């Protein structure tokens, strides 16, 4: 008897009918994903006329492709394009490096060493911070004087206050505190950060954006790397420790090389977020440190409406590096996330 369309032909295989349904679903989703990107690509080689005179789908058949938009951006506006591109690369590379380094150091230390900070001391510190902000902001106290007073008060009284009530936090609490920073919508903190950089005259500098990006991505790094480090057998580090290696050396020689997959996935994620970030860049950069998303968004502001062809070119050159990186590192992403995120 021949098996029906709904029965598998071989063990471990699907029936032809369900296979067809599955492929239909996957292919139609692939189409849904690819088509907008395809449209972006062909728009970038359309003349204004070809865009405005209704939909044309296939180059050389429907319309004659032209590279005028590419020329606009790469020849006529080369300086602007190049500057934004270079800014984006510098900022996202350094911010990612900083974030991954600082974050994985913190994650490593949290996964290996037990901390027990005193809750009351922390509350005392926050209270001092609030007081200082009120004093400076509302009553116009001198910034540096207030800072000095706060630091002095903290170190003088921290121990005394800490003895009042000894509730100690655990590593899990610190971890939760760091990760929970991700809940913070950028809009909540962006205005004070803007004012902070304004007061030290660092608006529109690379450093300001780099530091901000590094911090907003710290929670992701700490969260992913913490679980990753926990999955590395302790024996290796204990052995290195007995051999006399310091924590820095163990971290550099043993832990980091063993976390390559996790680091790759984390780095890629942070890189994507930094590369694509918009809101902070909008506040913190004007011209010198302008990044690509700002350049793209700014194209909206022309008098002739949106120049869709130029816009498409800008978006394409912005997508290319991340997509290339992602396709190359794709297998690390699933592996890295599997150990990190998925387990936690």
């Amino acid at each position, binding site marked *: 008897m021949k098996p029906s369309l709904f029965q598998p032909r071989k063990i471990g295989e699907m029936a032809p009918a369900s296979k067809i349904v599955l492929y239909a679903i996957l292919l139609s*989703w692939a189409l849904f994903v690819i088509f*907008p990107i395809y449209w972006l690509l062909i728009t970038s080689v359309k003349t204004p006329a070809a865009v405005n005179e209704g939909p044309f789908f296939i180059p050389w058949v429907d319309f004659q492709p032209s590279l005028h938009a590419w020329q606009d951006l790469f020849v006529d506006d080369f300086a602007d394009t190049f500057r934004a591109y270079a800014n984006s690369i510098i900022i996202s590379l350094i911010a990612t490096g900083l974030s991954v380094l600082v974050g994985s150091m913190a994650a490593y230390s949290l996964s290996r060493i037990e*901390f027990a900070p005193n809750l009351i001391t922390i509350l005392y510190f926050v209270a001092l911070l609030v007081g200082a902000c009120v004093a400076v902001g509302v009553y116009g106290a001198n910034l540096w004087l207030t800072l000095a007073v706060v630091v002095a008060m903290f170190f003088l009284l921290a121990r005394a206050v800490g003895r009042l009530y000894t509730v100690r936090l655990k590593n899990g609490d610190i971890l939760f505190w*760091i990760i929970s920073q991700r809940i913070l919508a950028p*809009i*909540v903190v962006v205005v004070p950060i803007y004012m902070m950089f304004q007061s030290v005259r660092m608006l529109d500098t690379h450093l300001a954006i780099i530091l901000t990006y590094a911090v907003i991505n710290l929670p992701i790094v700490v969260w992913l790397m913490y679980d990753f480090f926990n999955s590395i057998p302790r024996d290796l580090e204990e052995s290195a420790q007995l051999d006399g290696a310091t924590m820095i050396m163990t971290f550099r020689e043993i832990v980091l090389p063993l976390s390559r997959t996790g680091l790759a996935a984390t780095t890629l994620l942070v890189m994507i977020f930094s590369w*694509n970030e918009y809101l902070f860049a909008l506040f913190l950069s004007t011209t010198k440190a302008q990044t690509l998303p700002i350049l793209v968004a700014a194209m909206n502001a022309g008098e002739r409406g949106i120049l869709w062809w130029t816009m498409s070119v800008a978006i394409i050159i912005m997508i290319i590096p991340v997509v290339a990186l992602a396709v190359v590192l794709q297998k690390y992403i*699933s592996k890295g996330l599997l150990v990190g995120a998925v387990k936690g």
Partner: protein
Amino acid sequence: MDQWLDKHMGRLFLAPAVVLILVFSIFPLVASLILAFSRIRFSGGGFRMRFAGWRNFDKQFFGSEQFHLLGTFGPLSIIAWIVGITATAALIWWMYRYCKTHFTVFGFVGRLITFSMAICLVWLFAGTLLSGRAFGTVGTTLFYVVIGCGIQFVIGTALAFACSQHIAGSRTFRVVFFVPMMITPIGVGYIFRMMADTTKGPFSGVWQWVGLGNWSWATDPWAARIFIIIADSWQWIPFVFIMMLAAFESVPKDLNEAADIDGAGKWMTFREIIWPQVLPIAATVMLIRVIEAFKIVDLPNIMTSGGPGIATESVSLQSYYAWRSLDLGSASAIAYILLFITVVICVSFFNLVVLARVRAKP
């Protein structure tokens, strides 16, 4: 010196992260709170702050900006009464059951906060939308979060499950499905504006054919909102997809085979074996998505500028517009309202769903 370094290296490893977060997260948070309670006047190059009490919040909740943040309230319609009372009753029953079964003070206070937030949101919903009036940015943001994340979760999980089957070419599908996540939200916004153009976009033929040739997404509130959700889903389904794919692939193969030998069908295997295994991960993925969805600002800004009217404006965007009009006090107050709603909902979700799932897993 060496000994000291060895002893304190752990702290030194943690310190940079803590300092950075204090400076760039905690300090701004405190400063923002102070701004929210102040009136700021710009004069010349600097600005002056004066304590304003609850005025900034008052304006948002009860004053001139109420329609903007919460929506326009009208007399409650019959449906609004029915939905509101049913939901309230359900919530009270939920609280009552909790108190009857396993009461702890800490858990009770937490649930009381969740309960109050839920009641407020239910009556907000009933008072505006269900009574035939427009809702404000809070409603719009919640719409993006609930409907958007729901759609993304269902489709992303389904695709991940399909891709976790043994079929030829699944590797290619993976790479393709992953790509939208790489694209900057700004880019996604503009691409979908091109897509949705009813006269020059790729689907203009279709619009003409159904007689909507001169209609625009951007003029109808609900169409505009759905339009934004489609773009948001296009971008974020890959995230759910990649995480859930990793989850499905982490389910041990022998469990599947054991179920096969026991004679369980495909659906049975999925429901009884695979789903319980990935459920804790699914809850975590959902939590991450919800957290990020509350922050939505670039897509509505690019695609519709919050329009028509305020129909697609999210709370973040409202705060941004307030900042742009130099109303720093309101901007901070709105941001804090968003933060409060986000924290309550996310922490409730974490405690009641994620932790419960993790605890349930032996």
